[in-house]
Structures are given as structure tokens and as C-alpha cells.
């Protein structure tokens, strides 16, 4: 409905403007010319000397017939030239909308004053535009009317684009936003936002890299330029493990090439600046803010400049293409009325163009428009100035490449989701690409989608559970729902919260827009919005267990999908997932430092294998490669590292007493409460069945897991300890293949309200790792920090990976599920430990 209103609005506006620019220069030709067929001189498009050839042609044509069409033809041309400039100028509003939407990123703080400033510039300042005492080409009334339409149009475009809808007059948008071979439409703004998040991660790594450099370097040199030119840095390059330094090199190069980070990285005072945790974020915000304000000012200036064009001005363009576009528009006429010019008139007008009677007005306006909206990047071959979305990306020339490389990872179909997970795993596994632009973008998208999918699935599960459906049906429906979650749901927007909100002056809580968008898209796909409409998705809960949960969780449940994926808790989970991405790169950088510190010249080749040969059996995970898993060199560097959001420049951890945190915890608690009874029942049944089935052959050997400090005989204050042989994943793997007693004990432990568990490697008990649950994340620290060495770090790292990297954990769960299926086929039953593990670690 909204889009129809917008379309009608624009149609009306266009009519008003077009009428004003319309000419009335129809002439009667002399009889002797009526049988004469003039030559079309606009046939030199794309040729290097098009203007020269065109003007030769015009000279020859005009020599054949000398006609005087009077001043009305030139009045008409001036108006059409202004219309052409206005056509370009209006495209600036799309660039403006991109600026606005970028600043809507969750990374940025509230920028209220900018929205209001732009609103003043484009609305208040352009109201009643009179152009003073100037004799203008356009009438005063028309100037006023057109000037006042600027804000309305900017508003409509920005609002539409924020919600991923087609803006008015974007004829090629559909094609631009569609991924080939699928129905998925990706907004260029979404791509930019992913890039922004990726930039943020890269900037954090850069900061970390600088902090990891030896102090003697950062004390002496303050810019990257000075650092990499220094002898000390070259020595570092020569003494650290070369393959790892290569990764640092790669990362630095990627960062330097980033259009947003590049200029920041080259700051002469970078080393000091990064001490401010929010330096990069603030700078990125500042750049975007200045760009937006600058563009708003330019749009205002250009509006006045074009509309207030002096009546005595020639307004002739300098370029062949522009002249052609104006004259051909006059030849086509306006909406088929009688104002079309004929070829004689066209050739007559070009004679002026060829005699170089143009002044700088047209050129200057054109250049000024270009400063906001680079027309040369977007104009079609036919000279049309259709808007092409994605200016910021397009300026760098990689919007299409980016879209093509990312499209295969956007669901549906389901395979795209799997492809995304596989690519992330591949990036992790390949040390040479982990810091590549593609991998960072893919992991950013994965981090974003994973958190949002999980939230949507949780809400869906809760909604189904509230309907008291059988477990099997719930499971089936959830699986179906998961498959149906597409990119449109994951990228659905709620309402603007940043400067756009103030620019649009949104007063109403318009959640319907986002909801409508999602439902419209579902409707396009011919799907019913099962259980996810505002009625079904967030319906009142009457289930006994759930009804006991508090008002906050009720509030969470009543959210629309768009609200869920844009909720603070989901954003926090996105950031947590981004932490993993950041962490992976950081580990590689830190290893480089470790190598440097531990490897005097000539010793490096000896030091590397020690990273690769831990003193215990390591689980083989995707990123356990090349020793990149080794982390900080000092115990203080390892404690609590990167698992808590505040430790790495992301948003600080929420105060557990804050409303947001308690809402999130309540939400999680509601889910756990809802599941717990069923799962406990399931687990008890499964354990009983397992005992009845007897032990599998795999359990005949020593158990890979031993649990102590837990159970009826343990002290209440004792921290439960999980002794494992091999890696955690591997031990759990083995245990679930047959050690049902310990599985049951583990199940009980995981179900219990224990916040801390020690994980102890059997071969090296001194390498105990403390796992502490903090809200919805885990703090993994060495229990004996004073004993930290390379092997210990590898072990801590492996535990951390098992617990915190969602995708990898999902792989682990999938593997376990496979094992369980295998056992079921053999007629044995096993504990439903996977579900419990999943919930605990989820």
C-alpha cells in the first residue's frame, strides 16, 4: 500500500516538474522543405571524436537550409537543459539515502543531530525558495513547488530503501539487487553494512597488531608508515616465523586497501590513536557523518543553483552526450504531446552547441552533482542517467564482484546455508586465506546469519511449545521452519533508529512496515507465514511452564521476526560471533609475535614445531593447522581473552542488572525452563534404556571422560572436574559411543546449575582449564596461569573453540547426531546428550 502511495506521489510530482520544463515550440515548416529528409547527426555515440563529427554533420545540414525558429526554441532548450540537470540532481538523493542507511548500522551511536540538520537543509531551508530578485528560467511558483518536493522525495527514497523496497525511478534496481540463478534480492546497503562490520573487525585486528608489536617499535614510531620502514620492523619480519609474518603482511595489505580503513591506517599518529578503544569506530562514524552532512549541503546548494538559473544564461552543455540527451528528449517530446521538435530544429539547436556558445553554468552544476553522485560511473550507454544502486561499493568498482562472490551463500536454497558453513570452515582451515577479504566477508555474514537464525528458531520453538504440540511435531515444524528462513527474513529491518529516524521524523511505532515486508516476500514465494505472524509468532502463552516466565520473556515472544533479528540481544550475539572471527585472526597475529619473542635469529625453524606438537592428543578441528592456534605469550594475555565482549573493543559486556541483559537472560531462561522438563525426562528415559541395552564394545576400554567433584558425595563448594583423554570433542565423541554411565553423569552435571567446570587433560593435569558460564557466553581461562606455555595455550584454545565457535560446534553436534543414528541402527539406545549439550553450549 505504502509503495503505491509513494508511486502515485512521484508520478504527480514528476508531472508537475515535466509540465514546467515542457516546451511549446512547434513550428510549421516551409513547403519546400516538406519533401526534404534531413540527416540525423546524432549517430556518433561512443566514438572518440563524436563531437567533431557531429558538428561537421550539423554544419553540412544547416548549410542546406537556413531556418529561423525564433527565441522560443531556445527558451525551450534552456528548460529542457535544466530538466536534464535536475534528472541528474535527483539521483543524488539516492546517494544520500545510502549515507543515511550506513549510519543506521548498529555499530554507530545515536546521531540525532545529523538527521535534524539534514532535515533543516532539505526541508526548512528550501521551503519558500524565491531566488531573490533574479530573473529565472522557471517561474517563482514552479521553483517553490519543485524545491519543496526535494525533501519529500529524499524522505520517500530513504524510507523505501531502508526497508529494501524499490525506490521510485530505479528502473534497473531489480536486476541490480538480484542474485543470478536465484530469487534472492540483496540490497547493496546490506552489502555495505556487512562490509562495515568486516571493516570493524579488521580495525580491531589492526589495533591488536599494533599492540602486539614490541614496545621499542611503538614507542619510537607513531605511524604505520614509519613502523614498516623501520629497521626494527624489518628485523621482526626476518625473525618471526616467515609464514606467519606473511599472514600479518596479508592482513596489513588488506587493511590498507580498505577504502574506509585505508585512510585511517595512514594516520601519522596511529599508534597513539588506537589507545582509544573506539578510535576506529569513532573515525568510521565521523567519516560517514561528514559525508552525509556534506551531501545534504551539496544537495541543497545544487537545488538552489539549478532552480535559480538565470534567465539570460545559455545553459548549453559542453559535452556531446549531454547535448544529445537534451535534444533527443526534445525530439521525443513530453509524453507524446505536440511539443516535439523536428530534426530541422534539432540541427538548428546543435549549431549553437557546435559554435561553443556554452557557458560554465551547466558544466559547474554537472560537476557539483558529480561530487555527490558520480554520474560517470552509472550512466548507461544511451546517455540515460538511471540510478544505479551501491554508489559506495560502485565507486570502488566491486559491487558486482562482491555480489557475485557473496550470492552463493545467501539462503534459500538450503544448500547455500551449507555452502556458507563450508566456506567458513575452509577459511578457518586455510591459514593463507583466513585474513582474505573474501573470508572476512563470508565470516561476517555467517556471524550475522547464525545469530539471527538461532533467535528466530528459538522464538519459533517457543511459540510451538506454547501450542502444546507433540515433541516430534515441534521438531518437524522447527526443521521445516529453519529451512524456510531466507535472506529476506534475516535482513529484515525494523524501524530506523539513527539519523534517518530524525530525518524522516517518524513518530509512530511503525513495526508494520518490516512485518509487511517479510510477509510480502513470503507471499511472493507462495508460502504461508506459519506461526510467525504477529498473531501466531508472538501469541500469548498459556502453557503451564512458560506462563511462569516473567514479563520480559513475554515481551521477547511478542516480537515480529524483523524485531527479533534487529533486537539488542541478537546484535550482541552477532558481535559475539564476530569476536570469534576477530579471535581467529588475532591468534594468528599473536603467534607471529610469539615466534618473534621466542626465536632469536636463526632459531625460528626450531621454535615452530613446538607449537605443532602439543603434549597431548589434540582434536582435529578445521582450524587446527600450522600452529596458528597458539595464543598470547604471557599468562596475562590469555586470561579471559576475547570471550567477553568487552575485552576486544566490541560492545562492553552488559551489566547483568541492566534491563537489556535481564531481558535476554529471562528469554534464555524461558527457553531453558521450557525445554528442561522434557529433556530431563528424555534423558532419564534414554539413560535407563542405555543401561538396559548394556555397554557397547567401545566402552570396554578406559573411559575417555572421568567426572569428579560432582554427585551426591561431592562437596557443595567443589568445582566439578572433567578429566579427558585427548581433546574435548574427541572425548565426548568416544563417550557417547558407549560410556553411558559417564554420559549420564555428564548429563546430570550439565543440567545442574553449575556455573564453573574444570576440564583437565589426563596426560597433563597441570593444564586444567576453567570454563565459566557468563550469561550466554563462556569464559575460558587456564587454571594455572603461571604455568602457561605453548602447549597449554593450544589446549585452552582447543577448549575455547569447542565451546564458542558456533559453526564448528554445530559440526560437532552433527557428528554426534550421526553417531547416535548409527547406534540406533544397531538397536542400541543412547542418552539424549546431544540435545542437552546443544542447549548448554548454545
Amino acid at each position, binding site marked *: 500500500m505504502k509503495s503505491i502511495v509513494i508511486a502515485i506521489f512521484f508520478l504527480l510530482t514528476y508531472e508537475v516538474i515535466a509540465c514546467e520544463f515542457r516546451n511549446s515550440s512547434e513550428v510549421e515548416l516551409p513547403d519546400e522543405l516538406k519533401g526534404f529528409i534531413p540527416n540525423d547527426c546524432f549517430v556518433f555515440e561512443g566514438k572518440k571524436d563524436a563531437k567533431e563529427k557531429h558538428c561537421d554533420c550539423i554544419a553540412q545540414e544547416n548549410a542546406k537550409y537556413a531556418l529561423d525558429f525564433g527565441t522560443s526554441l531556445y527558451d525551450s532548450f534552456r528548460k529542457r537543459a535544466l530538466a536534464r540537470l535536475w534528472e541528474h540532481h535527483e539521483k543524488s538523493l539516492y546517494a544520500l539515502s545510502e549515507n543515511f542507511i550506513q549510519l543506521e548500522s548498529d555499530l554507530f551511536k545515536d546521531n540525532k543531530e545529523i538527521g535534524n540538520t539534514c532535515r533543516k537543509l532539505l526541508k526548512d531551508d528550501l521551503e519558500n525558495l524565491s531566488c531573490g530578485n533574479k530573473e529565472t528560467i522557471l517561474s517563482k511558483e514552479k521553483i517553490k513547488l519543485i524545491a519543496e518536493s526535494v525533501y519529500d522525495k529524499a524522505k520517500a527514497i530513504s524510507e523505501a530503501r531502508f526497508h529494501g523496497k524499490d525506490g521510485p525511478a530505479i528502473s534497473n534496481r531489480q536486476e541490480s539487487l538480484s542474485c543470478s540463478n536465484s530469487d534472492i534480492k540483496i540490497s547493496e546497503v546490506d552489502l555495505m553494512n556487512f562490509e562495515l562490520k568486516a571493516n570493524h573487525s579488521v580495525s580491531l585486528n589492526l589495533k591488536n597488531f599494533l599492540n602486539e608489536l614490541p614496545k621499542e617499535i611503538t614507542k619510537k614510531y607513531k605511524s604505520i608508515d614509519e613502523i614498516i*620502514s623501520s*629497521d626494527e620492523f*624489518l628485523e621482526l*619480519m*626476518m625473525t618471526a616465523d*616467515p609464514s606467519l*609474518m606473511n599472514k600479518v603482511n596479508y592482513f*596489513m595489505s588488506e587493511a590498507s586497501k580498505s577504502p574506509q580503513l585505508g585512510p585511517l591506517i595512514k594516520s601519522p599518529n596511529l599508534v597513539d590513536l588506537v589507545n582509544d578503544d573506539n578510535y576506529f569506530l569513532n573515525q568510521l562514524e565521523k567519516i560517514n557523518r561528514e559525508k552525509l552532512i556534506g551531501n545534504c549541503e551539496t544537495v541543497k546548494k545544487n537545488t538552489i543553483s539549478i532552480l535559480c538559473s538565470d534567465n539570460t544564461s545559455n545553459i548549453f552543455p559542453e559535452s556531446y552526450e549531454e547535448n544529445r540527451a537534451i535534444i533527443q528528449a526534445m525530439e521525443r517530446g513530453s509524453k507524446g504531446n505536440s511539443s516535439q521538435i523536428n530534426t530541422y530544429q534539432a540541427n538548428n539547436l546543435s549549431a549553437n552547441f557546435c559554435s561553443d556558445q556554452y557557458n560554465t553554468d551547466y558544466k559547474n552544476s554537472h560537476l557539483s552533482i558529480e561530487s555527490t553522485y558520480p554520474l560517470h560511473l552509472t550512466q548507461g550507454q544511451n546517455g540515460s542517467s538511471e540510478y544505479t544502486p551501491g554508489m559506495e561499493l560502485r565507486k570502488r568498482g566491486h559491487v558486482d564482484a562482491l555480489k557475485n562472490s557473496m550470492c552463493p551463500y545467501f539462503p534459500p536454497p538450503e544448500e547455500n546455508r551449507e555452502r556458507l558453513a563450508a566456506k567458513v570452515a575452509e577459511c578457518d582451515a586455510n591459514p593463507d586465506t583466513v585474513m582474505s577479504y573474501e573470508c572476512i566477508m563470508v565470516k561476517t555474514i555467517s556471524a550475522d546469519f547464525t545469530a539471527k537464525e538461532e533467535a528466530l528458531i528459538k522464538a519459533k520453538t517457543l511459540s510451538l511449545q506454547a501450542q502444546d504440540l507433540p515433541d516430534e511435531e515441534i521438531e518437524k515444524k522447527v526443521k521445516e521452519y529453519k529451512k524456510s528462513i531466507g535472506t529476506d527474513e534475516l535482513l529484515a529491518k525494523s524501524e530506523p533508529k539513527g539519523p534517518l529516524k530524525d530525518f524522516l521524523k517518524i513518530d509512530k511505532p511503525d513495526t508494520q512496515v518490516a512485518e509487511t515486508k517479510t510477509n510480502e516476500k513470503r507471499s511472493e514465494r507462495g508460502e504461508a507465514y506459519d506461526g510467525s505472524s504477529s498473531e501466531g509468532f508472538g501469541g500469548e502463552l498459556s502453557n503451564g511452564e512458560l506462563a511462569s516466565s516473567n514479563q520480559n520473556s513475554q515481551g521477547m515472544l511478542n516480537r515480529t521476526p524483523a524485531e527479533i533479528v534487529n533486537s539488542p540481544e541478537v546484535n550482541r550475539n552477532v558481535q559475539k560471533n564476530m569476536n570469534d572471527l576477530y579471535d581467529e585472526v588475532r591468534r594468528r597475529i599473536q603467534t607471529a609475535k610469539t615466534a618473534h619473542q621466542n626465536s632469536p*635469529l636463526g632459531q*625460528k625453524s626450531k621454535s615452530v614445531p613446538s607449537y605443532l606438537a602439543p603434549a597431548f592428543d589434540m582434536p582435529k578441528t578445521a582450524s587446527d593447522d600450522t600452529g596458528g592456534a597458539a595464543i598470547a605469550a604471557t599468562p596475562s594475555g590469555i586470561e579471559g581473552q576475547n570471550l567477553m565482549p568487552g575485552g576486544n573493543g566490541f560492545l562492553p559486556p552488559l551489566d547483568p542488572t541492566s534491563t537489556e541483559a535481564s531481558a535476554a537472560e529471562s528469554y534464555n531462561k524461558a527457553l531453558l525452563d521450557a525445554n528442561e522438563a522434557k529433556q530431563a525426562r528424555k534423558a532419564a528415559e534414554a539413560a535407563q534404556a542405555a543401561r538396559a541395552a548394556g555397554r557397547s564394545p567401545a566402552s570396554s576400554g578406559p573411559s575417555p571422560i572421568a567426572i569428579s567433584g560432582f554427585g551426591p558425595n561431592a562437596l557443595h563448594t567443589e568445582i566439578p572436574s572433567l578429566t579427558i583423554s585427548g581433546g574435548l570433542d574427541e572425548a565426548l565423541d568416544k563417550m557417547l559411543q558407549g560410556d553411558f554411565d559417564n554420559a549420564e553423569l555428564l548429563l546430570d552435571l550439565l543440567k545442574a546449575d553449575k556455573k564453573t567446570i574444570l576440564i583437565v587433560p589426563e596426560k597433563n593435569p597441570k593444564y586444567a582449564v576453567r570454563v565459566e558460564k557468563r550469561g550466554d557466553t563462556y569464559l575460558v581461562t587456564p587454571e594455572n596461569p603461571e604455568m602457561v606455555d605453548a602447549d597449554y595455550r593450544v589446549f585452552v584454545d582447543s577448549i575455547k573453540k569447542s565451546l564458542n565457535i558456533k559453526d564448528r560446534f554445530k559440526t560437532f553436534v552433527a557428528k554426534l547426531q550421526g553417531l547416535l543414528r548409527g547406534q540406533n541402527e544397531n538397536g542400541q539406545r543412547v542418552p539424549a546428550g546431544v540435545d542437552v549439550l546443544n542447549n548448554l553450549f548454545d
Partner: protein
Amino acid sequence: MKIIFVFTLLSLSLGVFAKTNEDGCLECDKKLSGAKPVETSEYDAVNQAMIEEVKVLANQICDTMMLYKNFGKPTYVAFEKMVLKFLQIDPEENSNYRQEVSSFWNQYNKHMICTTPHNGYETPQHLLKRVVDMNVTSSFYFEYFLQDESIAVNAIEWRGDQPETVVDYLDTILADPSSKELYDLETVKHLRTLLVNVIGGKRAKEILNS
């Protein structure tokens, strides 16, 4: 320590260096004669150790040159500084340092191979060819490297069964019609002319057949 190591090696190698050809192509004579040259065991041991170090250094130089290129800095600076650092020569104390770099290069240029994969670059790839692929030909070759006309440029890199010098590589580029999108062909041609006419650059077959 390293400088002692290098000088020991240099003195030990005096006797056998003559056995190598002028271009530093240590194994060319092996291929030609099919017989192993007579070398002392001391030389073998020290030389082998040195070669291993040079190989690591070469890769570090390649990486650092890439970094310099990305930050808009002259790549030859990275090259020279790292070689000097490797040789533990302070250019402020040793006015002859440029010759030291050249001597080092002339002896070990065969091993100056970039081995770490980088997107868009062949790997392994001799440093002289990598410079061309990095499109820093002018600043590296013209402003620095070829200032010393006695510098060795005929290291042979075996790509499968095919021997290839930098001159061969430039010929391949110039023969490929798609090269104009990747290289400044005028600069490539100029480099080839300079290498062949002034420095004595040759194709691999010319060296092997001589």
C-alpha cells in the same frame, strides 16, 4: 656471527666459485656435463646451511616488498635493507655496502625465490619475476637494481622441465595478447632491452647451450 659465517663461506667458496658460471647458475654445469663438480665437504656443509638461510631470507624479502608496495613505498628499499640486515652490514659504517649487496646477490640469486602463495602471483616465483608481476619494474629495476651493471640477472628457474630466466619470462609476457591488461608493456619492453643490451641478460637456452 653471521658476518663471520658469510666471510667463511665466501673464502671457502673462492675455489669452487670459479666452477660456477658467471651468472651464478650453480647447477648449470651439472646439467651440461652430467657430472657432479668437485667440491669440498666443508664447502658443502657451510654452503648448504647458507643456502637454507638465503631461501628463508628470499621469502621474507618477497613478503616485505609486497607490504611496501601496498603502502606505496619503494620496494627496493625493503630489498636492500633486508639483505644488509642479513649480512649485518651497517650502510652508515660501510660505504661499500652497495657492492656487498651485489656480491651477495650474484652468488645466491638462484635461490632468491618467493615461495609463500599470494593471490594473483605465481608460486614459487623468482624474485626478479615477482618484481615484474608486482608492477614495480621502474622503481626496482631502473632506479635501483640495474644501476649496477654487473648484477646477475640470469638465474635459471626450472618450471617443470622448462628452464626460464627473467628474460624468458618477459618474452612470455610480451607474447601473450592478454598481458596488456596486467602489465605496462612499454615498461616490460624497456626492461627487456636494458637487460639484454646492457646487463647481459640471456634466455635460459642460450645459457645452457653456451
